[in-house]
């Protein structure tokens, strides 16, 4: 599923700021539903992978301590306009998602 929002920005020092946003409830398994009073089952992203030009550059392993709708920012060396970025995630219930973006040229 193509659901990850990716924003890129080449910074003044040439590095690439990558920001991403994933729609996900990040349920810890401890929260009670305010209506039914039942515990909402754990449902959270466990791993986020960032690829540039189809090569893994970084990985984030996480638990439900990340806030819902997880936001992540990383800085990659040597930002090149047009480079393909890809983000993949998977959660504890076997769900997964991804997104792709191309590095935007620096704003003049």
């Amino acid at each position, binding site marked *: 599923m193509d659901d990850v929002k990716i924003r890129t920005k080449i910074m003044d020092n040439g590095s690439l700021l990558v920001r991403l946003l994933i729609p996900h409830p990040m349920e810890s398994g401890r929260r009670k539903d305010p209506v039914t009073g039942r515990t909402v089952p754990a449902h959270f992203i466990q791993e986020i992978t960032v690829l540039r030009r189809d090569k893994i550059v970084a990985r984030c392993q996480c638990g439900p*301590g990340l806030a819902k709708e997880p936001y992540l920012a990383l800085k990659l060396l040597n930002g090149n306009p047009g480079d393909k970025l890809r983000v993949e995630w998977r959660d504890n219930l076997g769900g997964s998602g991804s997104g792709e973006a191309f590095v935007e040229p620096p704003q003049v």
Partner: protein
Amino acid sequence: MYLTRRSFLWGLAVTALGTWWAAAQAALDTLVRPWSKRAFAAEGLDEALQQLYGAHKREASDRIHIEIPDVAEDGAVVPVSVSADLPHVESIVLLAEKNPAPLIAEFILGPEVEAYASTRVKLNADGAVLAVVKSQDRYYEARKQVKVGISGCT
């Protein structure tokens, strides 16, 4: 068996390819590790740190910078950024002392990534937020106290 020019060159090419592959694979393997249920399920900071680092020592370091509000009104969404002035940073780990499960995330950074990670976390109660940074097979740690308005771990 003659060593012809052709077989010699083939030998060179295969060796070079093998060396490159081994290096690339090694780099990838350090990035690919199974999700640690034990570390993420650990209750209590000491247990989480024990699961993550075992007997490895962690040095307090002022070269790690944790950017987080002193007072987090809403513990469900607390912005945090960590950067480190340390060479060859391989990973940045975020923990919250007072969370039911203190380990929040581990960022595994390849050689093309700067020693920086930013995200938004849940905080349960007033306490320390820790960043542990791995650099050249050594571990460095920094802590910052945060007061929490509304608990984010309900």
